[in-house]
């Protein structure tokens, strides 16, 4: 019986408990995956086309929506591209606040990825624990920005809210809680022999393949490539902060999970530094601050809530091109904004980490078992809307 007759074509998704908004077309021979092609595009909204009909400031909520669990990275990358075109640099305090929100977002984005991966290999406890322990960080973000996930916190020239009083103490409590829980996570899930059996040696990505396929984020670093945009091209407050780039060597599902867990610990270290070293000062660039009527400016300082200058409604960005990149939770976000001096960008290219990691589905599942498909899918922390945009 030739290979064609033996193989069964299995359509995993988009209506499937563990496929997300995409379809995996898997050709399987018995329990072995012969070939798997991801079929994406189910939640494609063409953010790049919409951006060409929206004004510059209106694009901020638009670019955040695709990667809902990690919105700060897209928001920050887009605004950094605008600031390069506008030729302005945000005040120091605003840079520290951007870093603070980016790291809080990284922690609960990693917890989101770990939780989804947990339920994909069967551990509903890992899922419930991770999603439960995300809550304190969503509360922190809600207190700082006013929203739980869709912050739109970063605007050209600075940020929209100042640090509430007593935020550092509450943040310290949330961090101590997560640190205290880590031992139980390791006992019940990460060191669980069944988890190790399901993840170790599964979906191995060699260092050469990781580089050849151009993947990014924890999936890249788990194969031994020490590339992190926060070190390669430091932005916001990262030049002044001391942190390590987390890497593992094996490049299998377990290594990817371990990179995310250790990155949570690293983000905790960063948050503590930011909250300790954050300088005083304005949180909006003075060229915009002086456009605000004095009475509102006083109130702004006193309430810590930034008022937009009316020019923001029709922000005009000088003609030119800007490329910016940011290390999001799932990997490197690259923005390429081309402006022709009008109210809307001429062309905005947004490359998200999941779109660069989608090639791994084909590569890692060749020869794997059917039960390895969800294990590999979850370990990539892949988010379909982020890949489709």
């Amino acid at each position, binding site marked *: 019986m030739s290979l064609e007759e033996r193989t*069964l074509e*299995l359509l995993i998704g988009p209506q*499937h*408990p*563990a496929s997300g908004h995409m379809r995996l077309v898997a050709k399987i021979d018995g*329990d072995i995956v012969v070939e798997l092609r991801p079929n994406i595009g189910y939640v494609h909204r063409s953010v790049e086309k919409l951006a060409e009909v929206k004004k510059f400031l209106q694009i901020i909520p638009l670019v955040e929506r695709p990667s809902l669990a990690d919105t700060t990275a897209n928001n920050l990358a887009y605004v950094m591209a605008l600031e390069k075109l506008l030729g302005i640099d945000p005040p120091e305090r605003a840079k520290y606040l951007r870093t603070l929100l980016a790291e809080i977002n990284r922690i609960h984005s990693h917890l989101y990825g770990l939780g989804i991966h*947990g*339920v*994909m*290999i*069967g*551990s*509903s*406890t*890992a899922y*419930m*624990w991770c999603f*439960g322990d995300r809550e304190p960080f969503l509360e922190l973000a809600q207190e700082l920005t006013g929203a739980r996930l869709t912050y739109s916190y970063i605007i050209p020239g600075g940020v929209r809210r100042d640090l509430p009083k007593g935020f550092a103490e509450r943040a310290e409590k949330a961090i101590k809680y997560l640190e205290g829980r880590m031992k139980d996570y390791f006992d*019940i899930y990460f060191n*669980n022999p*069944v*988890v190790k*059996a*399901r993840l170790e040696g599964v979906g191995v990505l060699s260092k050469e393949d990781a580089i050849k396929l151009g993947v990014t984020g924890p999936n890249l670093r788990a194969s031994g490539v020490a590339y992190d945009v926060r070190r390669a091209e430091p932005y916001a407050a990262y030049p002044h902060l001391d942190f390590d780039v987390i890497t593992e060597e094996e490049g299998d599902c377990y290594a990817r999970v371990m990179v995310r867990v250790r990155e949570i610990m690293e983000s905790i270290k960063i948050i503590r530094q930011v909250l300790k070293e954050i300088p005083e000062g304005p949180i909006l660039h003075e060229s915009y601050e002086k456009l605000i009527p004095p009475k509102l400016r006083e109130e702004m300082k006193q309430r810590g809530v930034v008022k937009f200058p009316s020019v923001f409604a029709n922000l005009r960005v000088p003609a030119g091109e800007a490329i910016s990149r940011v290390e999001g939770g799932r990997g490197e976000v690259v923005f390429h904004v081309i402006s022709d001096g009008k109210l809307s960008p001429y062309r905005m290219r947004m490359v998200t980490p999941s779109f660069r990691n989608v090639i791994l589905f084909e590569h890692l599942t060749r020869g794997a*078992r*059917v*039960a*390895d*498909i*969800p294990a590999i899918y979850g370990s990539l922390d892949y988010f379909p809307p982020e890949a489709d945009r």
Partner: protein
Amino acid sequence: MNIIDLLFQPYIFIPLVFPGLIAAFVLLLIIIWLERKIAAKVQLRYGPLYVLKPLGGVIQTIADLLRYLFQEPIIPKDVDKVAFLLTPVFLFGLAYLPLVIIPISPTYYAFRSDLSLLIALALATLAPIFTLIMGWASNNKFSLIGSVREGYLVTSYEMPIFLSALSMAVLYNSLDLVEIAEAQRKIWGVFLNPVAAANMLVLIYMSTSKFPFEIPEAESEIVAGPYTEYSGIIYGLVMGASYIKLYVLSLIYSILFLGGWNPSPSPDPLISGGVLFLKAFILVAFGAFLRAVYPRFRIDQAVNIGWRIAFPLSLLSILISLILILGGVSFGS
């Protein structure tokens, strides 16, 4: 003999009332609720709550049962109707069969034979056949894969279970459950042959696809395995069958290793039966608790455990029993 006395005749009472239909059904309702509550508590949440709130939603399963009863069971167009509809009935019905042979006190048993252990285990092996038929009848790729996985699992747990049971039968020099239970008056089987006890416990959880062996209906891989196309009461029957099988195997396990009804305060069948039921309940509850601790194995790993670990261990446990016998440990009448 009026109807009441007839009811209390052992050959009616055991299969129908105590360890049989009604007790199993009540245990089924409680254990599904308990599983969700245990998993909820370990996962920092409450679980079912709003049905009879003061008691923590204890009749949630009854509410689910009513929902299943009134839900329309959707029968897909090109499905093998006869097999599709009958297999759940057989699966649920035959899951009770081994209960007829299980004694609950030295004098009170429905049917006694000197091969009762073999009969009980043999009847317990009927279930997987219907899962296979169910998978084929649903005409769905995921069901097919799920049922083939069940087939693989059967090959890897059925034999070691029999061998472990055999090792205890060798120790007690009898295949009759009543004699086995009576022989453990002084010391339980688990202390004599712990290898067989541990091995058989793991195999019981493998045979009823409890975590970490929840492989045939692995939700994140093959939707619901053989039960994908089922809905309404036929799904309810199928879901309940695996718990009944776990209950039956736990009863057999309690008799073999945990001394059956021993240290029962009085020879009255209800009391000694209660002790046996309690032990079985604890085993079933522990199976439910495992859902909150473990992810699931891959099918090749489970078969690997069955052949490379469980099978040699069951041979070893037979060896241990033989050594104990030769060493002069004697039981029996």
